[in-house]
């Protein structure tokens, strides 16, 4: 297992990611979610607000954005400031670097976003409710797949955050819910499909079955990480003339 995930790199990445100033931002969105959930619990008249709010705001905004900040930080930030070179100067396999950083990102994102989503759901409908548990499962899946995509983006472009935002706004936010075929390629839909299989809540607007959601999630994650590893193998430093 140490060939796939390297404990030294894992520890370094966790410390580096949590140590950056960005780390504070991770906590903001989940705190807002929990806060608003508590507020709505007190004041809302309509009973359908939990899936609407937690499904839409949680899955479309909180989880992806948190994953974006964390996923681009674990490798992207180190490529930006060239601290990744210390790692790349050793014989460690590039696929190990990518996988380890992805695992670190997924863990951190789950701690902040998925747990936050669960807590918000627990406040809304009770800690053991199907909705809360469904949201937890879906959020964990979203954390995993989104981070794989954002780690890939970090290796492929220096503007990972901008491209990631564009993708979230246009693809996930807009098209995913409008165009039928696109749903198969929407991480949001994977998460909602998984959440719905437990929660059985039509207000979640989930369109994929559990099987499809899991299969597609695994495929997208695998492909994203494989491409990221391939690109990291060709990591290039320019000289000073350019």
């Amino acid at each position, binding site marked *: 297992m140490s060939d796939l995930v*390297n404990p*030294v*790199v894992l520890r*370094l990445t966790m*410390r*580096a990611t949590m*140590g950056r100033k960005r780390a504070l931002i991770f906590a903001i969105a989940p705190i807002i979610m929990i806060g608003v959930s508590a507020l709505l619990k007190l004041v809302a008249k309509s009973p359908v607000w939990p899936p609407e709010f937690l499904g839409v705001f949680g899955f479309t905004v909180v989880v992806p954005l948190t994953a974006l900040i964390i996923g681009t930080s674990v490798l992207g930030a180190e490529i930006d*400031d*060239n*601290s990744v*070179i*210390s*790692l*790349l*100067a*050793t*014989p*460690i*396999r*590039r696929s190990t670097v990518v996988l380890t950083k992805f695992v670190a990102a997924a863990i951190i994102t789950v701690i902040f976003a998925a747990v936050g989503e669960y807590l918000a759901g627990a406040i809304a409908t009770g800690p053991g409710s199907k909705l809360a548990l469904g949201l937890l499962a879906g959020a964990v899946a979203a954390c995993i797949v989104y981070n794989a995509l954002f780690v890939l983006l970090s290796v492929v472009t220096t503007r990972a955050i901008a491209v990631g935002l564009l993708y979230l706004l246009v693809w996930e936010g807009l098209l995913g819910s409008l165009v039928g075929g696109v749903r198969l390629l929407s991480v949001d839909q994977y998460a909602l499909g998984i959440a719905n299989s437990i929660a059985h809540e039509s207000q979640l607007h989930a369109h994929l079955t559990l099987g499809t959601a899991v299969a597609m999630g695994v495929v997208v994650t695998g492909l994203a990480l494989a491409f990221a590893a391939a690109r990291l*193998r*060709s*990591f*290039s*430093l*320019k*000289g*000073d*003339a*350019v």
Partner: protein
Amino acid sequence: MTGSDGTGRRVGSGGIELRQVSRWYGNVVAVNDVTMTIGPGVTGLLGPNGAGKSTIVHMIAGMLEPSRGELLVAGEPSWHNTALLSKIGLVLDKDTVYTFLSGTDFVTAIAKLHKLPDPGAAARRAIGIVEMTDAADRRIGTYSKGMVQRIKVAAALVHDPEIIVLDEPFNGMDPRQRLSMMELLDRMGADGRVILFSSHILEEVERLSGTIQVIVGGRLAASGDFRAIRRLMTSRPHVFVVRSSDDRALAKALITSQAVTGVEVTPRGLQVRAADYGTFTRELAGVSRDQGVRLRELLPADESLESVFSYLVTP
């Protein structure tokens, strides 16, 4: 495979070989058809900034693909060859290190990534070699630039590589640290390791015994023992600018001197090319006095390293 040849020196499987290596970015050619072999001992890669030294170093490090040509390190291409990095130690200029780690933690982590059997001991040894033992337990964020350089060298040495490549290693070091680093490189070179370092400062390169490779404008301009390079540089014609009370009269007199190969009258004054600048400077006062010309100014026109370098490039 490395071993000993009986004298205690290491015998490696090969140094660094470049055969007609070029690297370009669109229309910009950063490295142009460079062929050179770097063997055991210390070799200096010398050239002005932007000449392509870093590009060459990055290609050797396997962190940039040559656009053309063959680049071998210890007998194998370095591009897409992660396993080869166990034989190479890299100290690059551009990288930054994790500032939240202590020196010891950083070097130990690198030792673990190299899968060394006793990473802690290897780290301590490497830190001792670069004389950072006292500061090793402090966070790297508190280090001066010279200290950061030294901890990077420790990380590059921790796995005892046979080839060590350093890009501008003396940046940010005070003269004492520079001397100490030079002694370190000298010792490692004497061990039989292949050491290549780049610099744009002639004095730094000169002090270390061994070969110099001069890179100018992406090309290999000169290659050889540092004394030969020095001789090449001092035997080039020197250009002076002379201002006097009567430039043309002075010009007429100067052109008859054997030490002078050319005189040009320009608005700035006389541009004099002197093949033998020692003789020229001695003669100048006498010549101008004989002509009744008063000297106002005598300046060397091309003392910059750039002109020295470009002289070496022009055929």
